């Protein structure tokens, strides 16, 4: 479903003004329209998107998720200062349990687990966000092209997507990563190759719905090219659901990366990596601290991104927002 957005009143395309401005009518039933708030915002001449994000994050889940992510972002930024020891230095006795010397213990090579968990955030978080952005971009473009042009182009792109969907994600990622060789770069490529179809499918269905909208048809009648129509008329109105999907996928990307690292197909040692650390710990259950703390790090980050994704979805989908509102009022 398409979602006419605030740009219709503020954007350069005068045709946008032809859409319902109060957020009601058919637009109210579409995700991305927040009835009432959006209308007020438009009435006050304030771009609606500036209010949406805070609204979305104003839920308890959103606040908790945002706070956790903020903490991890700060950890990633300041890891070199926060780490009590060099995460690569084999400077301590092996397999020391958590204690005053090493707060989270040491691993099988005598490295400080706390320092490694904190340092791994510098790898995991940016890479996960990068992977999601790249797959979102690639999947959305391909899906939009398929949905807009239809016919042969649609068939080719979507059958390709079906082909990727036919395999379990982690298995396909493993195969690709194994073929390319271990390493963070190759793991990113592997995850990118297996995750774009989700975005392509969503983008395709949204674009198919939007391309018959009056404002798109009007633009074509005025002679707008297909790329311009896609980029200017359609893209702003299909972006919200994709953004929600992307947020929810960050956690999934982290888990897939951890899975690949667990199988020695991700980050190359000695780079600290949460998945690889869990893998090391699994081989030594009695040294429970090796796997537990990176496992908790994965859990908190994935959970936080899911909280934010859920909150965004609730806020951007008016039906869900209404239901949530009724339940909480």
């Amino acid at each position, binding site marked *: 479903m398409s979602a006419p957005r605030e740009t219709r009143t503020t954007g350069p395309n005068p045709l946008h003004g032809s859409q319902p401005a109060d957020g009601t009518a058919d637009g109210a039933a579409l995700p991305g329209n927040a009835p009432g708030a959006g209308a007020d915002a438009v009435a006050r001449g304030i771009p609606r998107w500036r209010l949406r994000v805070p609204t979305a994050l104003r839920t308890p889940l959103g606040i908790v998720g945002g706070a956790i992510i903020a903490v991890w972002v700060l950890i990633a930024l300041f890891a070199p200062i926060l780490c009590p020891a060099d995460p*690569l*230095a*084999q400077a301590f006795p*092996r*397999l020391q349990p958590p204690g005053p010397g090493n707060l989270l213990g040491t691993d*099988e*090579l005598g490295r400080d687990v706390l320092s490694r968990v904190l340092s791994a955030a510098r790898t995991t978080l940016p890479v996960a966000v990068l992977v999601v952005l790249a797959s979102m971009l690639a999947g959305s473009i391909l899906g939009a092209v398929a949905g807009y042009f239809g016919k042969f182009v649609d068939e080719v792109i979507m059958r390709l997507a079906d082909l990727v969907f036919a395999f379990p994600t982690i298995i396909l990622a493993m195969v690709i990563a*194994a073929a390319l*060789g*271990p390493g963070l770069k190759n793991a990113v490529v592997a995850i990118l190759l297996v995750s774009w179809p989700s975005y392509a499918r969503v983008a395709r269905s949204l674009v198919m719905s939007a391309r018959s909208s009056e404002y798109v048809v009007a633009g074509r009648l005025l002679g707008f090219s297909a790329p311009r129509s896609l980029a200017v008329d359609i893209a702003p109105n299909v972006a919200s659901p994709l953004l929600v999907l992307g947020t929810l996928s960050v956690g999934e990307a982290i888990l897939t990366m951890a899975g690949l690292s667990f199988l*020695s197909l991700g980050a*190359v*040692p*000695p780079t600290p990596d949460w998945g690889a650390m869990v893998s090391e710990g*699994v*081989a*030594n*259950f*009695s*040294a429970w601290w090796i796997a537990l703390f990176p496992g908790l790090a994965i859990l908190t980050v994935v959970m936080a991104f899911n909280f934010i994704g859920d909150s965004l979805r609730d806020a951007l989908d008016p039906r869900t927002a209404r239901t949530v509102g009724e339940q909480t009022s």
Partner: protein
Amino acid sequence: MRRRIGTFGLAAGTVAAVLATTACGGGSGGGGSSDTLVAESSFDLQTIDPARQFEFTGSTLDNAIYQTALKFEDGDLSKPGTGLCSFKMSSDQKTMTLTMADENAKFSDGTPVSADDIVFSYKRLQGIGGNPAFFLDGVDVKKVDDKTITLTSKDPNPALPYILPNASLGIVNSKVVKENGGTTDSKDKAQQFLDSNSQGSGAYKVESYNADSEVVLTANEHFGGQAPKFKRVVLRNVGGETQLSDVQSGQAQVAFDLNSDQVKNLDTGQVNVATQPSTRSPYVFNTASKDISAVTSNADFQNAVRYAIDYEKVQQLAGEGAQPLASLVPNEFIGHVPKDQAFKRDLEKAKDYLKKSGYKGEAITFNYASDQTVNGVNLSQLAETLQSQLKEAGIELKLAPAPSSTQLDAFRSGKQAMGIGSWGADFPDPTNYLVFTPGGTVAKRVKWEAGAAPEVEKLQKEALAAKEPSDRNTSYSKLYAALNKQGPFIPVVQPVSNVAINKSVTKYVSNADVSFDFAKAE
């Protein structure tokens, strides 16, 4: 990387442990009835057809099922002695004469073991041409009479007495095997039959066989030796951590695959541990080809690596009982180099050699099998440890992990500049390590071709010419000491092999030849 000899490791002598039953032992726990022994291992099982099997699990089972013409006396791998046969080597070391010695030996159907069975078993091994066929390469097997067999080699073959005790040379019931598709050429079709209907004269026979999950053995009622106390043996395929909890709780009586850290955590009130030095030698390899790497092929660089490794720390990583390795030959084999001659860390020397080599700090790709563990030494951990140690000397390693099959193929292609390899002894004789001399199978993988080290090759000729055990010991020791100083291979540690045994087993035999003898457990 190849299979270990016998079942597991190798030790100087037999460790026969006779233990009093303690309060914490008590019966066989959850592992089954009192006449059933449950053992656990991480399977690498392909088959238990002796002429085809070349893996650890297959050897463990075949040692219990089949008897061999010769066996090591009291598990001392330097003393091959009488098994089904006694033996005599000719003075030129080319002909071995086997004489039938065990009149009580009978197969599981009650048929006595004959010279024909021995000849058939050896010819079948050669004819099938499987992994263990190289044991009898170039050996002509002939029956002289009902009591005598000769094994004739073109060249002197003093290693033959050390080869015949291998489980792959187990003697099968020729009549029954022939009736079920067994031949002495590549058309042999008896593998499937032998997997579920073993035809040996050992203490046990197969009751059920599942290569993925479990193999059950029952006592061979016609066994010529002392009947085993445990009438059934169940060998289950279980991971290391589960083995740890099972052997402590009594769900299993024997656990074969615990690493040193797991062994440390065992409850000694519940479990005994039999530790044997490993026959597997992990080593660092460098290419000898300037085309592949001008850096790692440089002798000064190789010496820098030799002196940069902190061997003591590597031993700690390998666990209690790990030893220095002064050559690729394990410390218990004849022809080994005494461990006090092993290299020791000297960072100053390492830096001097590095300076002489002209190394400019470029990162060197360091290849290893990330999923491989050599008797408790995880190669990923070893690689990270070496990376850290070499960095202290100024050598930058860029780790390149790969699955073991990929790494093995890449190593065999001969295009890798540096990395970790490991060699498991096929038989306890120094000739098994000639593959590392110039032009040898493994040496070729690092482009160390014949003629590359004249001194080493001269010593090799002298060693091959030696006949008497003491001469062989001395000459091979000289050869491998020279190899260690001049060659592109750097042995790093001799690991240990651990077998954990629940105290409900009050008597067991664990030695160099058989790390746990099912038939002698009580």
